[in-house]
């Protein structure tokens, strides 16, 4: 199940995203003249996903992960780059073709309370999906399709005649999933699928999603802020910061040996439920907050918060400059880092100092010792 992050396109690849960018212009007035720099929500993201696997995009608010999800389903048109689904380019599609394409790629939104039309019964919600894509010729055929799907998502026939507000949060999310799978898609884009749910219900939905993936051979793209969930569901992960992937690769490798300081800190704040581990642990807490995507920092966009850069800036032997965020290596402030492949692990890291050359250095990172303990 290892994702192939090499350039050549393989036949079993469900989706290819190449150098995709979305910049929102800041406009004012009648003639839409550009005022100020555009907001670079997504800035050159590439990945491919093998059929039947699960790819997770992890990031904080403002990282552009939700924009990325909307680019993939074609709700937004990219500024640059393209998405290929089954070898068909989304950019080349017209509006009507895009709508037909959506049968293959379905989006499940975060808050099931808001994502279902309050005036439609569950049955109508599901029928609409069939109607839009002309699935099933007879009434009976559609009816049996609805009944199959409602059982697949763990609901009963009584739920079909209810309005969304008569369902609990977990049930609503099941309906949203049913609406997505009823038109037999190949790819599901799940935007924070469980974060609006109660803790005890989250696990049910995660299990349901994993069951459905196996039964129906679906390809998943999970958009989330929760690395713990990722370790559970995903085969591969892209960690996003200010519109770019800072680290992308197999989930197992990234969660056991994170390279990028941002990934490392995201992983370190995941708490287990064991107080003995948690009380003893040194946390790698980032300072400050995510800068606004309308004013992305120069050089490496993470340099304003990067603990590694601060440590290296203080250390001797590197050319360093003084910034409001401390003494940092000048490369971090001025040069945009390139993606570097970590051999043997299949990960790509976008950092001047976390690449293969410095791989040995990473063993002494505070985090690695912590992770041993747990």
């Amino acid at each position, binding site marked *: 199940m290892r994702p192939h992050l090499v350039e050549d396109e393989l036949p079993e690849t469900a989706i290819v995203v190449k150098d995709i960018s979305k910049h929102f212009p800041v406009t004012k007035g*009648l003639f*839409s003249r550009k005022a100020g720099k555009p907001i670079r929500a997504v800035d050159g993201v590439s990945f491919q996903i093998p059929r039947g696997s699960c790819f997770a995009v992890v990031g*904080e*608010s403002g990282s552009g992960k939700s924009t990325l999800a909307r680019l993939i*389903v074609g709700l937004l048109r990219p500024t640059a780059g393209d998405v290929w689904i089954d070898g068909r380019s989304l950019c080349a599609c017209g509006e009507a073709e895009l*709508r*037909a394409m*959506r*049968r293959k790629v379905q*989006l499940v*939104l975060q*808050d099931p309370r*808001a*994502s*279902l*039309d*309050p*005036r439609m019964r569950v049955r109508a919600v599901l029928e*609409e999906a069939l109607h*839009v894509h002309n699935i099933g010729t007879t009434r009976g055929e559609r009816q049996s399709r609805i009944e199959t799907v409602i059982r697949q998502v763990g609901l009963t026939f009584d739920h079909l005649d209810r*309005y969304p*507000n*008569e369902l*609990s949060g*977990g049930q609503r999310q099941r309906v*949203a999933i049913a609406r997505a799978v009823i*038109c037999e898609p190949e790819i599901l884009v799940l935007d924070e699928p469980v974060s609006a749910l*109660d*803790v*005890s*219900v*989250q*696990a*049910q939905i*995660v*299990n349901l999603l994993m069951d459905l993936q196996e039964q129906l051979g679906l390809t998943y793209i999970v958009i989330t*802020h*929760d690395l*713990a*969930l990722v*370790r*559970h*569901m995903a085969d591969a992960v892209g960690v996003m910061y200010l519109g770019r992937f800072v680290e992308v690769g197999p*989930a*197992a490798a990234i969660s056991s040996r994170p390279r990028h300081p941002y990934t490392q*800190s995201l992983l370190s*704040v*995941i*708490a*287990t*439920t*064991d*107080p003995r*581990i*948690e*009380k003893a642990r040194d*946390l790698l*807490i980032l300072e400050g*907050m*995510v800068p606004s995507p309308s004013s992305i920092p120069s050089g490496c966009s993470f340099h304003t918060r990067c603990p590694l850069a601060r440590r290296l800036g203080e250390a001797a032997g590197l050319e360093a400059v003084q910034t409001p965020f401390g003494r940092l290596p000048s490369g971090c402030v001025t040069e945009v880092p390139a993606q570097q492949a970590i051999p043997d692990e299949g990960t790509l890291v976008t950092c001047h100092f976390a690449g293969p050359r410095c791989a040995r250095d990473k063993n002494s990172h505070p985090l690695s010792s912590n992770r041993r303990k747990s």
Partner: protein
Amino acid sequence: MTSTAEPGTAIMSSARKAAGRRRGMGLLAALAKQPKGLLGLTIVGLCTVLAIAGPWIAPLDPYAQNFAQTLKGPSAAHWFGTDQLGRDVFSRVLAGARTSLGIGIGSVVFALLIGVPLGMLAAYRGGRLDFLLMRGIDIMLSFPDIVFALAIVAILGANTQNVILAVGIVSVPVFARTARAVTQSTLAEPYVEGSVSLGCSPLRVMTRHVLPNIAGILLTLASLLFATTLLSASGLSFLGLGTQPPEPEWGTMLGESRSYLRSHPHLATFPGLCLALSALGFNLLGEALRTVYDPAAVNSRSKFGSIFSDLIGRARPTHPKPVRDRSDTAPALKPIETKDLRIAFLPSTNPIEVVRGISLAVEKGRTLAIVGESGSGKSTLLRAVATLLPRQAGIIGGSASISGTELRGLSPGEVQELRRRKIGVVFQDAASALNPVLTVGQQLEEAIRQGTSLSSAEARSRAIALLQDVKIADPERRLDMYPHQFSGGMKQRIVIAMALAQGPDVLLADEPTSALDVTVQQQILVLLRELQHSRGMTMLLVTHDLGLVARYADDVGVMYAGELVEFGTVDEVLVTPTHPYTLALKQSSPGLSEHGNRIRLQAISGEPPFVGRVPEGCPFEPRCHFSRNRGHCRSESPKPRLVLGRKVACHFAEELVDASASR
């Protein structure tokens, strides 16, 4: 959001449920339930009958002049008297109904048919079309509407059709604006995005998802606007610029009556009354429709007693002072203590118990975390301890105390004193916990100076010190900034600074980080922990995240359906849970999935019970793997008892201990 809001949302959702089922006759029923709606419907119905049948049921010819009978007062022959030409006023009022109301309906329909599609189109297309339309509306609104209508009449000439046109054109901007605004907000709803991503065409999205959802608001507006339109149209006729005599129309009749006001006031009485009543009817109907269609309106007009009731000193359910057991409270004063605390929403009318007998105590300097899902009553518990229960909630039994001060039965002055010096509260959503129109300094200094005689300079220097304590750089400058200029994490730091203003003994934090990004969450929690240690405060932390409990709390109370199912130190409770719910929560937590990918989580089946619909016996029984349908669990609610050094409310806690020991 918080579980405090849940009984409210439960009520709201039942109202929405009614709204969801509403179709045709259902709407009439919903309207007739409100006094306003019933009265409005009656008047509007009467108006409709008059407008249709008025000219036919008029007893006399409204145009027939009789110079022998001019300006007579009301009598048996002429109920409303006669006018200057001896015409029967009653017949003219009846006949005028069709013209007056017809003008109103005509103009509203005209404005609706033009304004709504324009507004929806502008909202959907956006960009230049939207801009041009909005500027056009701005220009139209640069004229007072009656003056604009006058100008149109001046161009087209004074008659009934032109009044319809004039008043209709004047109302177009109102419809276009409203339709645009509600379409925009509906288009922003996730369910619209959902149907677009499903593959619905724009036409289908507009007709199937947007229009049904904005129809109610437009209907409301049409009803309210009809009242305005009726009055302006008749106003034009009153000025002699609308319907021309001898055509009977209420406004025209009023205009004609002016000359006879001194001697024959009855001429002005009846047409005016009809106008005012019809307008009132449509206004009432509009208000009633608004309550049906606008959930915000339902919410704000709460039925549960008066707001600010403390201010006028009544209507607040008085809490009887509990009998204090001296021997019980005297020895060690716990910073926070509750005894069999029970809280219900709407205690007087329809009590929904959300906290059902909670007894807990926190030792000085320790952090107690209350864990639970939504609806467990955890936030209500915190608000009760913070003396900030919402209006519609009340303590119905048991007691709660802060540093030995019993919270029930305190005078408003005592409550204020307690809030100032003993209690600090950190809210979930820092953005709404700060007043948007006051500077951070004003709000912070207000907290510092309450009940003290500090000068403003002293308060300011303390405010600066507080901001330094919560690690906000450049505090002098920040004091003069407004909340919206800070990020979420910074706002939460300011809220914490405010909570610390007068050195409280206890800090109550209600999900202080769940609205924040993961990396910022930890910053805030570490800050809280540091402050708590350096100031020796006792902390009550409400959260849903077991990981945070493991990391930051000393003691933990697990709440389920308003009850404390397990309560003890974190080390004991989280390492060896003795309640099946605690164990299940721990196992379903994805943070544990250290061992590998794609392993199924141990999910808890079912969902937490609805507030106010807690099952008999043990509330967790329907979801419990452990009860195995044992009758005891269903019939009898387990009482908290001591097992392995912590309090557990489970009949079979020992079995669970044995089972996990053998594993």
